[in-house]
């Protein structure tokens, strides 16, 4: 595989780098959070000597942190879904005389530069942010996951064509790629609000294809060498059937755990795009564009940036935490055998 960095990280893969409490060499999936999914590849590519003192029973528990993360995400999701029926101000309604004012009765999170209710904007903004996070990753999972599965399972010619192409996409720093894609795609679509969100989803989704593809491929690679695959072949199961029925379920946890991080990443990336003015377009709120717009009010009304940042931070933290739990819980390490 003509890997760009010259490392073929996929030959020896531990799909779950942080499988026991502390001893593994991988940093788990952590590096991807800011966008280095390549780094994840590296972290994942290391096999690790077993720690004699390791406590294997500690893994896979959801724990207090896990439940907190689930509750937070549940709350955010519920608020996002229920936003139309909640007793909120219109996120676009401007309260005159209340511009950039802090928390007060009627406006628990204060108002923004145009006197719009911040609580309402943050809750309505979660809809756009979640749609983008979930949408982009679903898109990336479907296409990248499919390509990774097929290349890792069939190897050969498909692999020789698809994998270099994916590596190529990885040679452009991800944010630069996303920024260019969204800019170009947004220029061609006429910019209605929903369209714009779709464009951002598409741009970010394309960016995640090579990452998810690479990780899926690496995992598929090691799983497809296992005995049960040989056994299935021996009894005459068709290749595609083996791939879908035997290999995919084993690869899925690793994909899911990366996807959790990816959702957070995509939500952050949307904010980055908003800094360049190509994210979700105002006045429609998204967490990213509330923060990006709030920078103009940093001196007068820092609460706009602070509140929204905290909400975004907690959401990403919860997603990362759950991604970590999943990767520990579905200890796919036997894949090495």
């Amino acid at each position, binding site marked *: 595989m003509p890997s*760009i960095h*010259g490392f073929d990280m996929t030959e020896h893969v531990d799909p779950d780098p942080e499988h026991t409490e502390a001893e593994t060499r991988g940093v788990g999936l952590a590096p991807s959070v800011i966008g*280095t999914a390549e780094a994840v590849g*590296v*972290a994942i590519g290391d096999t690790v000597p077993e720690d004699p003192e390791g406590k294997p029973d500690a893994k896979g528990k959801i724990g207090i942190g896990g439940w907190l993360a689930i509750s937070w995400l549940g709350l955010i999701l519920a608020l996002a879904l229920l936003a139309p029926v909640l007793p909120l101000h219109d996120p676009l309604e401007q309260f005159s005389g209340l511009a950039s004012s802090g928390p007060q009765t009627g406006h628990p999170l204060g108002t923004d530069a145009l006197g719009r209710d911040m609580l309402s904007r943050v809750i309505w903004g979660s809809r756009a942010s979640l749609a983008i996070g979930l949408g982009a990753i679903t898109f990336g999972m479907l296409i990248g996951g499919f390509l990774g599965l097929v290349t890792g399972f069939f190897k050969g010619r498909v692999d020789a064509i698809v994998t270099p192409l994916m590596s190529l996409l990885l040679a*452009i720093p991800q944010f630069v790629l996303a920024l260019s894609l969204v800019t170009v795609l947004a220029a061609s679509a006429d910019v209605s609000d929903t369209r714009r969100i779709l464009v951002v989803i598409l741009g970010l989704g394309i960016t995640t294809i090579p990452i998810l593809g690479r990780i899926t491929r690496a995992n598929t690679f090691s799983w497809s060498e296992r005995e049960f695959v040989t056994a299935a072949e021996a009894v005459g199961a068709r290749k595609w059937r083996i791939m879908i029925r035997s290999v995919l379920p084993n690869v899925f946890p690793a994909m899911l755990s990366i996807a959790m991080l990816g959702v957070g990443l995509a939500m952050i990336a949307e904010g980055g795009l908003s800094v360049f003015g190509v994210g979700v377009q105002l006045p429609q709120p998204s967490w990213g564009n509330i923060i990006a717009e709030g920078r103009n009010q940093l001196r007068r009304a*820092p609460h706009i940036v602070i509140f929204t940042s905290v909400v975004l931070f907690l959401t990403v933290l919860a997603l990362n935490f759950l991604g970590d739990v999943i990767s520990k819980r579905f200890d796919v390490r036997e894949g090495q055998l």
Partner: protein
Amino acid sequence: MGLLRRLLQLIVTVVAVTFFSALLLQLLPGDPVEVLAPFSSEEQRDVIREDLGLDDPFVVRYAGWLGGFVTGDMGNYYTVSSKRPVSDRVADALPISLQLMIYSQLISLAFAIPVGVYAAARKGRIFDKFSNATAFAMLAIPNFALALLLQYFLGVKWQLFPTSGYTKITEDPSMHFQQMVLPCVTLAVGQFAVYMRLLRSDMIATLQQDFILLAKSKGMSSRRILFRHALRPSSLTLLTVAGLSVGTLIGGALIVEVLFQIPGMGLMLAEAIATRQMVAFQSLIAIVAILYVLVNFGVDLLYSALDPRIRHDRTR
């Protein structure tokens, strides 16, 4: 052979990346000249059109660009009335971005190495748990939000550092570093967390090996064991990841440069995208890709220098 193959890979990558970005820009609707020079006369437009080769087929235009790029001609930046070679501006902007990235790398490594080593040595104790949890939280901080929060708290509220701008180090070193603090810290926080966690788990693995036990039984001080014996074999993955994170750093630097008004490659790329300077855009992407691939190329070379075992391990 390895070196030659890598060089070939480098060239293929750069050609493919730029071809891809050219193709992408090709998809833009509308007349590019209209965007480049909205108020120009018909003659001026014809000149620009001729200059950009807009009437040529796509492949011819791309080949022309590639020929120019190889010989150092990165095309022009167009404004309403004039054009300026992209290479001029790159010469100004690239060092600024590199400074930003190098400082950030240094800051993050300067903290990550001691913290990671110490946490590994005291695995499971309070310091380890605390630093690990902190690093995990740091990974969830969006960089643009962090930039703004630092600007507000350290810049506006407590007036410790300037919130924006750039001064050359040769002009006013003190001002230069003061202005660089916030943007570099913004970029360094995420990197620190990645490096620290990585080094910690690598160190834990190394500390279980026999030669560490031997060193201990010889009565060496634990500091010497940690930093002289264990750090080097543990730093290999760190090195790789530090190379690969240049991609993240570039993305982060883009955003940070806009938020802190630092006239580097990020601001330039953003401008090129916004005003659809396709030739400039293509050249900038090519530079970024080359930079990125070169860094990883260098890391790979360093790798075998740091650990002779690698040569055997990796020939599998």
